[in-house]
């Protein structure tokens, strides 16, 4: 899959409480969740995400709660890809299960800046920062993970008979 777009950059330990504060977890409506995404971390996120669709962050992205509402809110906001130095394990699992693409690539996460234009081909495991011209390599998704993301999530993949 190809991902392309402008970057919003964050630091280490972006936790699920700032991605989607618990006070908004009284709904499972994706649009409503998305409207509060990153609210406690970055009040400008809603504005930024109108023109940017890739999040780049530091270590332990998505730490904290198991709320699947967190990757759901990010995806529904229009973000197509999250690149981080590392991910908290439940967030990693949840992101794949709901069909949000994520890369663990410390070099790219370090070098890419907010506002940069990025191009990535997940089948080849390549990330290109078009603004600086730097290229990074990451492990391509294993086929079953690639399939889940392409299908739009674990449930869709199971329904389509792509995961048995």
């Amino acid at each position: 899959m190809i991902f392309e777009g402008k970057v919003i950059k964050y630091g280490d330990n972006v936790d699920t409480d700032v991605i989607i504060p618990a006070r908004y977890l009284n709904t499972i409506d994706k649009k409503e969740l998305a409207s509060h995404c990153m609210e406690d971390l970055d009040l400008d996120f809603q504005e930024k995400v109108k023109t940017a669709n890739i999040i780049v962050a530091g270590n332990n992205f998505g730490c904290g709660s198991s709320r699947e509402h967190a990757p759901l809110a990010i995806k529904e906001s229009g973000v197509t890809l999250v690149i981080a130095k590392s991910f908290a394990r439940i967030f990693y699992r949840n992101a794949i299960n709901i069909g949000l693409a994520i890369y663990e690539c410390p070099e790219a996460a370090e070098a890419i800046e907010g506002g940069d234009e990025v191009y990535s081909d997940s089948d080849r495991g390549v990330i290109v920062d078009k603004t600086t011209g730097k290229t990074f390599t990451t492990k391509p998704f294993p086929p079953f993970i690639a399939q889940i993301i392409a299908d739009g999530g674990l449930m869709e993949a199971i329904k389509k008979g792509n995961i048995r």
Partner: protein
Amino acid sequence: MSMTMTQKILAAHAGVDKVEAGELILVSLDRVLGNDITSPVAIREFNKLGYDAVYDKTKVTMVMDHFAPNKDIKAAIQCKMCRDFCREKEVVHFYDVGRMGVEHALLPERGLVVSGDVVIGADSHTCTYGALGAFSTGVGSSDMACGMATGKAWFKVPSAIKFVLTGKLNPHITGKDVILHIIGKIGVDGALYRSMEFTGEGVSELSVTDRLTICNMAIEAGAKNGIFEVDEKTLAYVKEHSDREPVVYRADEDAVYDEVIEIDLSTIKPTVAFPHLPENTHTTDEIDEIRIDQVVIGSCTNGYYENIKEAAEIMRGRRVADGVRAIIIPATQEIYLRAMREGLLEVFIEAGCAVSTPTCGPCLGGHMGILAPHERAVATTNRNFVGRMGDPTSEVYLASPAVAAASAILGRIASADELED
């Protein structure tokens, strides 16, 4: 065989003799848990799958604890969605207001987890049951939905860090100080993707409550699970609470660990995690005066009988400081009832505390004690992220029940030793 405790449990549930770190396996689940926040998403996903029934009516478990008793209309609708689903699917272990407790305190108490089990829960603190020698871990709602449908989940087999506990805890030092000390040492991603396995002669010095508290916060170090070696205390606890037979898995002598860390329990002091990460730890003897507005004693980390009892003994005959709101939340109905029968609730009320029915409530900023801008709380809960208990400018300091109780009395963060006799 060279397997850790965790790897042995996973191998047995995958139906294979041996697993290795990094391997992807499909395991059978002894229990699938959800709460009133995560279950609605799981139910929506489950309904997409087209299954008529859950895989086992006695193994799917839902607990209405986060925003229950319902904090608002939307929360009421979410609880109703869970209630209707459980009624329709004839889910046996559905716990509603009046019978529920904070989920991770409730399941061991109800005997729903025994040593050797594999449990997934759509709640990050599902790792609590490692205290009983089970493999348990937090997952998302999609995993819960798949688990409810098929009774299976996939895992990458984790490697482990071995914690060798020695020595004995000093008075008023409990499991909370131990786990905060460890997270302060290894960091909030210090055990990322891995197991934290607790062993050593010091284990026998820790109560089952201490072990529940320690495993509960394994996730705050990024771990997949925390797990204690099973001993006589574990087996006695399981026997008292469950009719099911525990299965004891011990690590092989030649099990391979990424790291071995020795923790001398006798050196641990009252430890507090400052905002906004559980790794920002300080001991109470090295901090300046920090005035507080609220104290919360409860949660799946520290709402157990032993914790409530200790806090009550510290508060007995004393008064909560002016300007401090102290909120006590026994984690389950059984704990609440016992505390009431033993007069502990009276001690709290006489001291000027509010006592609440079981709920996760303030721990995640849901209800029952939300903080205003710039307010500061000492809480026996497990997270102190930005906005965790209320306004994004408010602050949460994580501490033991003893520190929380002493802080309520003194109006500042303090250890129990600082109280005058």
